[in-house]
């Protein structure tokens, strides 16, 4: 293990991650996590690595990308650690550090793109974006897509926020403010 105190401090300060130092390694989080068995490390172990500065291994882990945001761990952590929020932070840090993007990131980005453009999302728009990157995973959902289409449940036309110009200005400003900080 090579310790990377700089990256760790960024996690501690910018991302309010210092509270993971309070973790007593009880394992409640990993035990509650629906997808723990597919994770490289459960949340507990990930935190043990992060607080000792093993950032490279932590940021390359699939753990946070498999987090489903169920908040199960967070409501039960005996030390009151905002585990799910730290999963979000570690995803953002992995992207910042240029870790090879996993499938879930592509899904998120295909979700965000139509939102940025129209302010609202349709399943079709998100899936189309994702399908370009991951045809296999998308194919697995093709059957479902057909069924939904047959039931007239898919919307092919993008949905746009009524005051889209204002929406875009707000998002633009947010981007700018974020760059500043």
């Amino acid at each position, binding site marked *: 293990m090579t310790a990377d105190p700089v990256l760790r401090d960024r996690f501690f300060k910018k991302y309010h991650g210092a509270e993971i130092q309070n973790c007593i390694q009880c*394992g409640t989080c*990993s035990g509650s996590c629906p997808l723990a068995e597919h994770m490289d490390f*459960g949340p507990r172990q990930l935190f043990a690595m992060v607080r000792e500065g093993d950032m490279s291994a932590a940021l390359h882990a699939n753990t946070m990308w498999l987090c489903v945001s169920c908040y199960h761990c967070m409501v039960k952590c005996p030390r009151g650690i905002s585990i799910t929020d730290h999963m979000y932070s570690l995803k953002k840090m992995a992207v910042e550090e240029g870790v090879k993007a996993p499938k879930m990131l592509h899904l998120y980005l295909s979700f965000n793109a139509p939102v940025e453009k129209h302010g609202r999302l349709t399943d079709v728009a998100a899936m189309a974006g994702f399908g370009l990157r991951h045809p296999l995973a998308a194919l697995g959902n093709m059957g479902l897509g057909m069924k939904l289409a047959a039931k007239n449940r898919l919307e092919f036309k993008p949905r746009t926020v009524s005051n889209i110009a204002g929406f875009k200005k707000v998002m633009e400003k947010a981007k700018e403010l974020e760059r500043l900080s």
Partner: protein
Amino acid sequence: MITFTLNGKEVQGKKGQYILQVAQEHGVEIPTLCYHKALEPAGMCRLCMVEMHYGGRVRYVTSCNYVIRDGMEIKTDTEEVHHIRKVIVEMMLARCPEVPVVKKLAQQYGIKEPRFKTEDDDCLLCGLCTRICEKMGRGAISLTGRGLEFKVDTPFHAQTDVCMACGACESICPTGHIDIRNITKYEPRPLLSEWDVGLATRSAVYLPFPQAVPLAAVIDPEACVHLRTGNCGVCKEFCEAGAIDFNQKDEIVEINAGSIIVATGFEPFDPTPLTQYGFGRYPEVYTSIQFERINNATGPTAGEIVTKDGRKPEAVAIIHCVGSRDQNHMKYCSRICCMYSMKFAHLVREKTGAEVYEFYIDIRSPGKGYEEFYNRLQEEGTHFIRGKVSQVTDIVDSPEDEGKLVVVAEDTLARTVRRIPVDMVILSVGLKPAAGIEEIARMVGISLDSDGWINELHPKLGPLATPSDGIFIAGCCQGPKDIPDSVAQGQGAAGEALSLISRGKLEIEAAVSVIDPERCMGCRQCEMVCVYGAISYNASLSVCEVNTAICKGCGNCAATCPNKAIELRHFNNDELLAEVEGLMFAPVGIEEHLGGTAM
């Protein structure tokens, strides 16, 4: 007095007594079924049949409701009597072939199969239920109908609000026919035994627990039908010692004491809010205290470790730190749970041979012989899994989970999530300060820490004492502790109290506060600031007074009094001001005089 012959012997009875009563007084056994000494006999079952010779005639009568007469001759044990009873039992067996009391009687009378056509009923029509309900002042149920339709029922065959759900009928019924949920409109509320932590029921008059001091029964006024409605009162008729007194009330007893030892103990954490452990939802999830009862020879299972449906468990999970070390509940370590959990593991293994899984965060065994006990448990093959359990569920993932409770936890040392099917789950619940501790603390003038335990005078040097002289603490009221520590502290506190008493005198502070009654206007602010509780208000004089045996001379009150009515002996305001003045206007060179290091 009435004199008659009973099985050839001359006996006497009071006027109006029934044959059965006199026979019982003389130790003559007559079988009965519908007789109950709290109730008027009804002669329904006819099992108590005896042979009577009177006035030159022989008759067979039901002894439970036949009044004795001078000169009668009663035989309880003749061939003919036996024959009649046997036929009666045979008829009962035909009516209720599955009812245990009847089956037992049939066995006694050597009946295998009744000669009559069998029915499938479980009501003997003994009328005990209807008579006891009458006694409860209700009459919610009665024997109604004719012939074959004769049965126990409520008016209009519907649930009724006449029934108060007292449960007397259900408990008196010899066959188990009565289920008051079919009778009452109210929610039946079984009386759960506090001592057996809800695992068994108790009656409205009961012994709190076998070692109770004083060893006397108490009446639960919320449940007692007599105290609620004025009816029933059967316990009073029964109690031969005449000890039942319905007029008794709680009493407040005032005792003058020179010293007080506070030993209010703890109460177990209630795990209901930890819904992920399913306590109260899954019958086989127990608290540690409940398990103590199950394991106890006088407990609801007579010490046999079995599930509620009577199975011997094959696997048992023990979950540590339930409520403890958890900032959502109690942030401290309860200190005793690791060790008692291991005791449980040992007992379960010894008594049932089951696999035992201990789920722990850290094993804390800091005591003489404790680590060795842990090692012994390891040698016994207990599974120690380091991980706090995340949930107990009956969700079936694999066939082995069927009919089991699945305990889910990360095995943090093997770094894998495990789902272990077990038959029984024991929650090692933590310790909380006993309810009411705030009130006691206020009463004796001592303080509590942020978790609600009593603050000792000093954690190392004054563990038994409190800031108030003569008030000592012992046991868990100060914080979680095990039995040896509690005993040690108890003995220590007793010793401290005794040493005060044996001295016979009290050394008090010289510098105590005095209140000038002329200046005191009775605002009582001093009373509130005194941490030792040394000040009390004298209502007749409308002034506050200092108890010099308690006062420590801290001066809080003197500083608080708006009227400057309080002075601290030897440190009164004039004296203090003079000293300050002396320092401020001291002549040059005074530093040397005061031993200071002049430049």
